[in-house]
């Protein structure tokens, strides 16, 4: 670990000022950043601790939505009454991630910005375009079981590892950010990026911007939803494939379907045109499979991870079935 300086910001204005310094970075729960600093993958020269900022509340918005402060803890969010009752999909997704201890530390803002779990990204002795632009991608011809099958580029096939973000993508949240230049709101679909030829950039957040809140629209799909996470062990593992499914039904007919995939791309994966295939259709296995095929239409496997293409299709079908039946959910 390299030496760094550290300050604790009293308010957002100071925080965004402090982070504009060369090499400065925010630290919230630290559950991702500190790990990466210890193994020299990230080496900020200054840490701006934002944990004292008043950004940890969860509040209703005037239009019936919910505003999650960026510093609300993952655990507090998942167990919040309004999240549990109105956005149970989000609660389930958060609780499918990490461990109780980590969720107690991890913040909602930090969760959005957690970095890929690609093996090579984690080992500074290996080439990796994301860690060291231009050095090459070891994973494409190397071990890529965990990596992406959609939206990849020849420069990087990393995935975004978050569970929470998959639900946020399905729920069409908005990310509120602020810098000394002002504020802006980023629709969730535009928050994370595809690797393209800039795999070192995970998101469209500017380094001097702070996430202040994540806003959920009123529609929470609390009647029919499922978060299905497939992984190599029952807990404390990232998704090979995950699916956030949310349905609005009229009798047996689908009025609206939202599907987001995790573990398959550099960002939570949505295909609105494919979702639309279900609109006005009966909620049947055949129709689900047709959507699944459409979702994975452009998928490309890299050897170790090729199985994810079929797995993702089956997972979509299963998640939609679970959303219909709501089995095992109160």
């Amino acid at each position: 670990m390299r030496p760094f300086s550290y300050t604790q910001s009293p308010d957002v204005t100071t925080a965004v000022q402090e982070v504009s310094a060369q090499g400065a970075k925010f630290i919230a729960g630290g559950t991702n950043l500190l790990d990466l600093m210890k193994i020299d993958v990230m080496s900020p020269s200054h840490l701006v601790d934002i944990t004292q900022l008043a950004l940890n509340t969860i509040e209703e918005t005037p239009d019936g939505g919910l505003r999650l402060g960026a510093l609300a803890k993952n655990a507090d969010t998942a167990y919040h009454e309004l999240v549990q009752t109105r956005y149970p999909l989000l609660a389930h997704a958060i609780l499918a991630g990490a461990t109780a201890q980590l969720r107690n530390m991890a913040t909602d803002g930090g969760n959005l910005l957690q970095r890929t779990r690609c093996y090579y990204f984690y080992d500074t002795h290996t080439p990796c375009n994301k860690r060291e632009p231009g050095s090459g991608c070891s994973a494409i011809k190397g071990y890529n079981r965990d990596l992406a099958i959609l939206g990849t580029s020849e420069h990087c096939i990393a995935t975004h590892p978050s569970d929470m973000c998959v639900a946020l993508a399905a729920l069409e949240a908005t990310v509120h950010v602020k810098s000394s230049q002002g504020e802006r709101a980023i629709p969730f679909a535009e928050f994370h990026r595809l690797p393209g030829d800039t795999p070192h950039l995970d998101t469209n957040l500017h380094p001097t911007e702070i996430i202040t809140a994540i806003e959920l629209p009123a529609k929470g799909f609390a009647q029919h939803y499922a978060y299905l996470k497939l992984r190599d062990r029952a807990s404390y593992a990232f998704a090979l494939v995950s699916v956030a499914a949310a349905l609005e039904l009229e009798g047996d007919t689908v009025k609206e379907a939202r599907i987001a995939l995790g573990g398959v791309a550099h960002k939570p994966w949505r295909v609105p045109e494919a979702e639309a295939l279900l609109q006005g259709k009966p909620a049947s296995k055949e129709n689900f499979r047709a959507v699944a095929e459409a979702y994975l239409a452009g998928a490309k496997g890299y050897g170790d991870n090729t199985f994810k293409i079929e797995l993702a299709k089956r997972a979509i079908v299963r998640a939609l079935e679970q959303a219909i039946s709501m089995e095992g959910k109160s």
Partner: protein
Amino acid sequence: MKENYTGAPANRVDGRAKVTGEAKYTAEFDIPEVAYGVVVNSSIAKGKIKRIDTSAALALPGVLQVFTHENRPGYTWLDSHYQDEDSPPGSPFRPLYSKEIMFSMQPIALVVAETFELARYAALLVQVDYEMQPHETDFKANLKDAYRPKKYKSTKPPEPRGDAEGAYDQAALKLKETYIHPPQHHNPMEMHAAIAKWDEDGKLTVYDKIQGVQNSQKYLSNAFGLKPDDVHVISPFVGGAFGSGLRPQYQLFLAVLAARELKRAVKVVLTRQQMFSFGHRPNTLQEISIGASTEGKLESVQHHAYGETSRFEDYHEDVVIWPGVLYHCDNMKVSHQLVGLDVYTPLDMRAPGGSTGIFALEIAIDEMAYKTGIDPLEFRLRNYTTTDQSKGLPHSSKELKECYRQGAERFGWDKRSMAPRSMKEGNQLIGWGMAHGAWEAKQQEASAKVVLSPEGKLTVSSATADIGTGTYTVMSQIAAETMGLPLENVTFLLGDSTLPKSPLEGGSWTVASVGSAVKLVCQKLQEDLLKLAQKMENSPFKDAQPEEVSFANGQMFLTQAPASSISLLALLQQNEGKPVEAEATQKPEKEQKKYSSYSHSATFVEVQVDEDLGTIKVTRVVSAIAAGRIINPKTGRSQILGGTVWGIGFALQEHTVMDNHLGRFMNHDLDKYHLPVNADTPATDIIFVEEKDEVVNPLGVKGLGEIGIVSVTPAIANAVFHATGKRIRELPITLDKLL
């Protein structure tokens, strides 16, 4: 059993110390003025260091030195001086020996600084230029160059019996399949660590994470040219090791070297990532051919193994002895070859050879049972053996049939339907599988010492280790029982090289070896106490022989006339307030050579496999174990539970991923190297089957450290087959293989 003697589920005597943090593990010893060493490891797998620039590191105030092959002092560099008790044939790795790189993550420098943080930072500043050479780490691609080692580290594969090839050709039913498991790393909870301190008089004190302090002592005295008595190695608690601590690892050598040069105590603790930079369970491929009659009689078994090793040592383990141990078959042929790669030498890992060989054999047997249409348990009964044919010796005891019976009954095996995919619940396929296993019950020479204080407190000691297995507890129980004292009055000391000689803690032989020595030394103490009693006036013990006296409730008495007794405290007063001491060495009896001795297991497993998604959940395990006398059913059960969890990981998760382009293991942390978590572990039922063995060792124990694993892995694989109809022969069985 108020006294918590052998057979009683006594709590760990060190339990309180462990949960309160009072028990100190190697890295936790506080040594004044200690300096901190951080290791730099190589990026490449093969080649030479062209240039190693330490100037930026050395320029930091507080950095004391950076040791590399260029400035390391010229101690002995003779190969043989680096050999240890567990070295395979070949030339051991010598840290900082030369500019040559032989494997990825090879230690190439030690940065020593005033603080750990500084040393860790400075380590990042060491610049290395390499001259790369092409490496070979691809196990499968290099199978063509497999060779038979000149010397086998473990048992030489048994000679062929009968005509295995001919009988195979003639057999009505034939099976020929290949089974593979990947490299696996030990990953104990505690990282390897060493602290070295040289005294003014040239004596060395070392704290080391090791499964046998006297192995480190011997290694250091050879490597640094010291008298063994001048090297004192201490290791009272080990936070798991699983074989990773059988051989002294490089942190020990580097700490001692740095401490000597800097004239300062030095501590070196490896990181989790560095735990992947040395020994591992070797990638192994096994070809098994079985010929059987339609009645399910084995006519021929051939078992050929190919195991990975390094370029510098021929590591080999007992992979192919198991058909001869576990089945009756007159035509057998086995072999074991090695595949040399540019990796570090593999290292014994919990049930080395056994978990490898039995996993493959027991899947193959299940496959053959299905070819014959005979229930897998019945198939094993039809090929049961009471002799170890590979050695041509009878088993000293073998209650495997009773394991089958009790295990099957507890599990409800008779309710199983034979056909795969026949036990479905919704979209979950249910599978039931079983396998059996064995592990050799060995006894090694061991010594122990006992001191009975004038206050009646007993201190027993031997230089063995407690790697979490419960050595402290079990040895105390044996001593307490032999001397008829309450458990609280007994203290057992271990993990100190000045104590009486003990073998490495490994091979499941510690209770058999050290426990037998403890019993013997207590018996010797009894004789001394009897002599003291005989010196007393009007002693009723005057003419008593040692075998005529008993010890219980703090008293010595004539067995035939219990009223003729004396309390130990009164006896001790006869010794003028001095303690009574004894030392003894217990060697294996010659009689043992006439027998083959193994513990046995039968494991029954239920799995649930999602029909569409391939996710696997082990929902139930019953393991029945016959392992001689169980000294402590509580610590014993923990061993078998741990073995069960291990078997689940072996079957479904563990896999160190080698990137052959880079020649490097890539999943070197516990996020990426998967081991089971609590949510992966099912309700587990453990049965200890009664087994009497008068030959195996004076205690009649067989060891529990490894037998718990061996049959779990194949039982899971067989259950997955029963659930899905898919035979997965390459581990780990992950969901993608079932899609």
